């Protein structure tokens, strides 16, 4: 058991509208606390927009601008430049978007913002599908997962957003998981100290969308990391790879067994998924080792 220091200076108020047991709110609470009050949030339509609350209420103690679903990174760019024009260069612009708004419909403007290296921290709260509309597939949905639009299981693999973002050569790209809060806090604080486009995708198991009991969100998030299905790593300046959790004690089958979205998977498919995870993990290990061995 790892002890996590309690959140100081709460930026997310209680009484918000997240589903019971939802760990999106838990992750947001830690992210917002790390960012502090001199921050503006950009939150497109997503679970996080629901958590942020209906007018005239807001569960966040910082200003929130809700753009259209596909325009978060462009909106954040506009906000960033307005702050720059006002001399408020230290104010952080934080995007809290879902995977639909990031991997899919918001991808074009995110790539453009990264190409311009806009000074924003873009956090994708990645629950691997359109969970706010009742669980349909996004391009973040993993291979074989069942959703409302893939009732027999998704035929293609999860888009590798981390590598795509890293390929822009932006200063900081990372994965994080709500199950590893110390690591999440570390990454948000590290990203906060960097200027330029920073991207963190945080795995958020969706209780309803993944078919998990109300108390199983964190377990699923932890199993995702421990099985290597969702490795925790960083890529700095598009090149330096750091694997943050190097042990991989679980087979993917343990992770799949927790979730109804993988119900009835054929053994051959489980083996296929295990092989995919193994190959990705080994490639990451090689790159992390190469980075560690390379001269500074």
């Amino acid at each position, binding site marked *: 058991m790892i002890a996590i220091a309690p959140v100081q200076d709460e930026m997310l108020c209680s009484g918000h509208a997240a589903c019971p047991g939802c760990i999106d709110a838990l992750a947001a609470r830690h992210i917002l606390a790390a960012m502090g*009050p*001199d*921050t*503006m949030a*950009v939150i497109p339509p997503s679970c996080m*927009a*629901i958590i*942020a*609350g*209906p*007018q005239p*209420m*807001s569960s*966040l*103690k*910082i*200003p*929130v*601008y*809700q*753009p*259209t679903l*596909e*325009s978060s*990174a*462009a*909106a*954040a*760019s*506009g*906000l960033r*430049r*307005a*702050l*720059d*024009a*006002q001399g*408020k260069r230290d*104010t952080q612009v934080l995007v809290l978007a879902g995977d639909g708004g990031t991997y899919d419909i918001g991808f*074009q*403007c995110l*790539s*453009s*913002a990264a*190409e*311009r290296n806009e000074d924003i921290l873009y956090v994708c709260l990645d629950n691997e599908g359109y969970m706010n509309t009742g669980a349909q597939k996004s391009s973040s949905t993993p291979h074989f997962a069942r959703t409302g639009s893939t009732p027999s299981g998704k035929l293609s693999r999860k888009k590798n957003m981390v590598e795509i973002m890293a390929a822009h050569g932006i200063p900081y790209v990372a994965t994080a998981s709500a199950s590893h809060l110390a690591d999440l806090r570390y990454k948000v604080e590290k990203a906060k100290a960097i200027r330029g486009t920073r991207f963190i995708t945080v795995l958020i198991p969706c209780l309803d969308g993944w078919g998990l009991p109300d108390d199983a969100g964190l377990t699923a998030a932890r199993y995702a990391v421990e099985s290597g299905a969702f490795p925790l790593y960083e890529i700095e300046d598009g090149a330096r790879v750091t694997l943050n959790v190097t042990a991989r004690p679980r087979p993917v089958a343990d992770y799949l067994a927790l979730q109804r979205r993988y119900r009835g998977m054929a053994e051959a498919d489980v083996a296929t998924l295990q092989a995919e995870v193994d190959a990705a993990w080994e490639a990451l290990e090689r790159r992390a080792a190469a980075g560690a061995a390379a001269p500074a």
Partner: protein
Amino acid sequence: MDAIAKSARGATQLLTGNEAVAWGARLARPQVCPVYPITPQTPVLETLTAFQAEGTFDAEIITPESEHSVMSACIPASLAGTRVFTATASQGLLLMHELLHYASGARAPIVMANVNRTVASPWAFWPDQTDSLAQRDTGWVQLYVESAQEALDSVIQAFRVAEQALLPVMVSLDAFYVSHAMEPVDVPAQADVDAFLPPFAPERRLDTAQPSSWGNVVSQDMYYRHRQAIEEAMARVPALLAQADGDWQRRFGRGWGVVERYRCDGAQAVVVTMGSMCGTARVAVDDMREAGLPVGLVKVRLFRPLPVAALRAACAGVRDVVVLDRNHSPGAGGVLHQELRAALYGTTNAPRIHGLLAGVGGVNVPPRKIAEFVREARDSEPRPESVWVR
């Protein structure tokens, strides 16, 4: 004379409509300018970036991957309390459509120049106002200008009206006829423009010192009241524009009006149109007046909100109103024709309204043709539908 000295003193320069737009924007001192290139608007972008490169324009210029992202960036930049300018045309404006609604809903006083160009398909690059007229329900104030001088003046006036009404304003100029034609333009001195247009200082804005949010879900009642407030703001626009234009006239010696009446005294027929077509219609009116025909021109400068009272006054006592539409709304005909019919419906001795689809797709409409249209209209019964003429 270098550019900085010119700006300080004011000077006449030979400018295209696009360059005049860029000068208007520069003099208005916007702080954020997201912009994406598209024919025939590109010279606006390039003039602004050239100003920035020479050190005479210090706005944050953002160059996103699409017009959609341009408008997406404009809105929160405006809500943060900065003055925001952009420019687009045709397909670019259509791509922004969703965000045009978003901008007016957010009460973001963005000013945007739009170069009126045909919409695809098929591809074409000619003057045609369908692009911006198709945005008439998006909550943007719309101005249509006739010349490079009017383009420059209108961009600056637009900021004043936008920031008073808290509504975005679009200034449209016809492709090539205005955007690329050069004419001598009086470029006012910076200090004189500063005296006309105070810095943008909105009471409410996105600010970490006073945290508040924009865009969260609202109830039916809140939404209803929000739309009412937008309508009330729109209703103030004709007076705000008249005021801004009057002040402009006092300071700079020229004004453009909300609706301009050209040689309308005693007119039995008036031509009603917008944009560059007005220049041609002036020549036609002069020719007809010289031939003894009592014909005038009513130029619609403010199209949204439609200045109904001014149009009713301009058309009162006139027998024939001849509307020239350089646009096409399939199934409805000419947009200005339909708008005029609605505006004049129910007035006492309402004029006979003839709607002509003239110049659609950039087809040339010379003065003699306009005179011909007026004579034909005078001698025929008006039809409810718009008529194709060339």
